[in-house]
């Protein structure tokens, strides 16, 4: 497997291999960082922090095949630390606006209905507790496995499951009747 081979190289201190690994999923990393940091500048700062941190700690990674969930955990931790340092609380809904900003450029054809539904979804997400929202976004928007989310948020996997379940339930209960296709 290519990933495993690259990880082994990176473990030996090969910087080029590490860069290549990040490169393969560069956009996914960036979106994740952006959702926490709220602006491209800080998101890229967080990724710089991440790659330096990865370089130093990769020898400790036991399972080569889990490089991506491991490195994303490190990225999320770096993001949280950075925003603490900057002494600002980034609400996920604000962060989403930055994702929207980024989208406005690429997305020209946006039907009115789509926009409306999106506002609904955002409104619904805004109703959730920040823990529930984080778990749902990490799982559904960033495609992360439950175990990875548990590692990122420092809680047992059961808690993650329940946050997602409770969050989805809340969304359904609150807005369940309002969906019109």
């Amino acid at each position, binding site marked *: 497997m290519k990933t495993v081979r690259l990880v082994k190289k990176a473990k030996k201190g090969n910087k080029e291999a590490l860069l290549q690994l990040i490169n393969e999923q560069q956009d996914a990393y*960036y979106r994740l960082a952006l959702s926490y940091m709220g602006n*491209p500048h800080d998101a890229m700062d967080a990724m710089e922090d991440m790659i*330096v941190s990865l370089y*130093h700690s990769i*020898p400790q990674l036991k399972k080569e095949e889990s490089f991506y969930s491991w490195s994303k955990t490190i990225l999320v931790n770096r993001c949280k630390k950075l925003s603490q340092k900057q002494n600002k609380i980034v609400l996920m809904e604000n962060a989403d606006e930055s994702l929207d900003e980024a989208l406005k450029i690429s*997305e020209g054809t946006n039907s009115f209905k789509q926009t409306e539904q999106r506002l609904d*979804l955002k409104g619904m997400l805004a109703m959730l507790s920040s823990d529930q929202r984080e778990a749902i976004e990490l799982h559904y928007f960033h495609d992360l496995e439950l175990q990875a989310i548990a590692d990122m948020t420092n809680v047992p996997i059961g808690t993650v499951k329940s946050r997602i379940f409770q969050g989805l339930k809340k969304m359904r209960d609150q807005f369940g009747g309002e969906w019109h296709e």
Partner: protein
Amino acid sequence: MSEIENQLKKEKERLDEVKAPDELNERLRKALEQTPPRRKNKAPKWLAVAAALIALTFVSYNYNAFAYYGKKLLGYDELMTETLAQLNEQGSGQAIEKKVMLSDGTELYLDGLLTDENQTILYYTVKNSKGLLEDTRFDVIRGVWTKAFATYGTFSMNEDGTEVKGIQGFDAVSPFAKELTLEFSYNESSEQREITFPYNPKQAMQTELKQSIHKKVHVDQGTIRFDSITATPSRTTIKGKVNVDNFDRIDLGVMGIQLLADGKPIDWTGGSSKSALFGQDIEIYYDRLPKEVNTLEIDVDKFVGYQKLNETIALTGETEQTEKIFGKELLIRKVEKTTEGIQVTLATDQNVLLDGVSIQSKGNSTPLHTTLRSDILERENGELNNERVLLFKSDELPETLSIEGMHYAKSYGNHIQLIGKKEKR
């Protein structure tokens, strides 16, 4: 899938449109480049020492701590050079007989150690009945006034892949060390280990000849200075310094410097050069000296030289145009026009590098812009050729090719007499 999940999925598809800025890649590369190389051993020292102590306790329980071997090591025959085989036959060296258990159940046995003033040679065996999957890498032997880095190594594996026998060379260890610690790593360096064993410097093999030389030989673009010769049972080492401008222009290095005992060359076994103030420090390694030597001399048989040529060759436009310049063959394989400029493919003897190459057309001369490729190719007659593709910034096919000079393996033949009279050991 519930309606909510469906909506979330749609939103994800939308968010996936967000792409990382172009500058990100460059920023990551820079961040990584500025990071200092990571320290090799992450675990605190006391942890490693504790681990080694525990390992040692187990090991010493199972084995007699120390024994000299007056017997020869078995199973290393195919790995050993003739000299090492003879030393083994004579029972030179000392037994270590230590075992280390690695995390995946693989066992490393340190069998014996052969030391002298030139180098240290470790005999080892790696075993795992389930098959050996990972490499063991030896880093350094530490001890009092000793930091002997690993040099060369060779090993062979048995047919079912369960046992490896190997020989690993290190720099020489100090005669004051009473105990040596071998640092090694296993499984792509994920496992860093060390093992300490007693060492008896009195068992080191005696140096047979040691003398300073302090002689200089002048070559075309500088001087070679020979400082000393140290002959031990395992190797003969000549140390010196090279201060020659074009030393690295061809691959010859110090390979053409011979050591003649009674007029016959001793096998050349290796060489090293590292840059120093005003030139390079060199070491040249030869096999053990014969038992009796009447004369011993250094012969600078071949070394890099420079020949001024100032030749102009008319290009015929044919493929495979052959020319002779200063007795050396020059093949002009191809001259072609590309979008980048004129490309000329030349092949020469392996140890020839042309200097000051330019092309001329309609009275205009264009100097070499860059060399695009350089390959060592074997010719039908078995000789090695160096083929290079040269690029000239011009868009006119040239009529002539000019060469100012060449770096090449020149026969010098300077002799330095080391021993002139009968010497017995």
